[in-house]
């Protein structure tokens, strides 16, 4: 989900589309099955004058992958700066808290990608931090699951157990 892409004072409106396509190829370093666009952490792509700015919403504030994501976005977009056809001479990657990242920002394709790689996607409710609400098991689909630990191997993952198919699994937390 990318909101509010705006192009001002530049004849190169197509650049925003190019940027979106590049961002859609960048994967989450901790869960490479999902792109940062499908994860919903790209809030906005803005071109003002000759400056391209990408706003990133952290899933969790202390996420150690954030620096890597920011650096990767910068590296992939940087070549646009040296291509005179883009009209871009500055690339900024900003970490933003203008709105909280929530599970509702994960795209349908992102949710499918999480499930396919063994992660239960969070429930699609932007208002609530989900604690103790049973996740759907990514293997058998059952809701007869329990949270074993609200804290998992990374800040955005909890550890769960399915009492139906007896598989441990992780849930991507709502944030």
């Amino acid at each position, binding site marked *: 989900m990318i909101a509010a892409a705006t192009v001002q004072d530049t004849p190169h409106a197509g650049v925003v589309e190019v940027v979106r396509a590049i961002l859609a190829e960048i994967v989450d370093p901790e869960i490479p099955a999902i792109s940062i666009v499908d994860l919903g952490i790209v809030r906005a792509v803005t071109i003002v004058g000759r400056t391209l700015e990408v706003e990133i919403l952290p899933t969790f*504030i202390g996420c150690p992958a954030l620096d890597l994501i920011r650096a990767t976005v910068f590296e992939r977009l940087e070549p646009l700066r040296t291509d005179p056809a883009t009209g871009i001479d*500055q690339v*900024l990657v900003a*970490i*933003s808290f203008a709105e909280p990242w929530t599970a509702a920002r994960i795209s349908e394709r992102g949710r499918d990608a999480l499930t396919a790689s063994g992660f239960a996607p969070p429930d699609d409710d932007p208002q609530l*931090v989900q604690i103790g609400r049973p996740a759907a098991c990514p293997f058998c689909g059952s809701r007869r699951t329990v949270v074993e630990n609200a*804290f998992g191997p990374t800040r955005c993952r909890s550890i769960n157990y399915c009492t139906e198919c007896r598989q441990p699994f992780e849930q991507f937390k*709502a944030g």
Partner: protein
Amino acid sequence: MTTTRTVRAGGTGAGVPPGLEPATAELLLALADDDFVLGFADSEWTGIAPHLEEDVAMSSLAQDELGHANAYYALLAGLTDGDPDQIAYDRPAEAFRHSRLVDHGRGDWARTMTRRWLYDTANAIRLEALAHSSWRPLAELVVKVRREEAYHLVHGEAWLERLAQVEGEPRRRVLEALELVGPDAPSVLAPLPMEALLLDAGIQPVPGAELRDQWAARIAPVLEALELALPEPDPAALDPGRARSGHGPAFSALWTEFESVRGLDREATW
């Protein structure tokens, strides 16, 4: 010219009315130092928590706190044209403005959990108010911080209940922890020296004294159900001039530890 530094949309120091920078900096430093010092203290449990799940949980909690501190330091850096890492790691110990509650060493597991619960509940009350700060960059950040802190509250309360309800050693240790850190608990919400300015500008929407009443009402039912009582506050914990200064030996040791790597080479980057 090109940068990957954290540049927040709108500029970090934007919107603080002229003249209010020092008071706002004081607020940010209190928020940041509380989380930073608590995060470091709790990170000491990594590898030695009572069981594996708690190893993971405490590491996550500590990581959250350090992340929150980093975000507050980044706001502060924008306000003072400074650098978040320098603010965190290049200050003498006496320049830290964390509260007396956080100044205690982590102690045993019961003390860590009791202190966490006292801190998390007080911090939640403070953040609830700051989510309505007139300074948007702070209000926006706090909205996100609160969502994460919800997990901390559930974790801390579950442990306090578990320990306090088992007669014998677990309950005895909770009582000892309350006795030691309880008198300092209100220090988290003690009015800051420049509070009046922050209140006038709406940067801090609710006075510390009122927050403290809200907090007391919030924790009373839990304490009552567990037949626990918070000791009388230490006068220093209520005093704007003393609630966040005059740190003890536990913090000296912690400061020496977290500053040591940075101290090897202050110019190093990675």
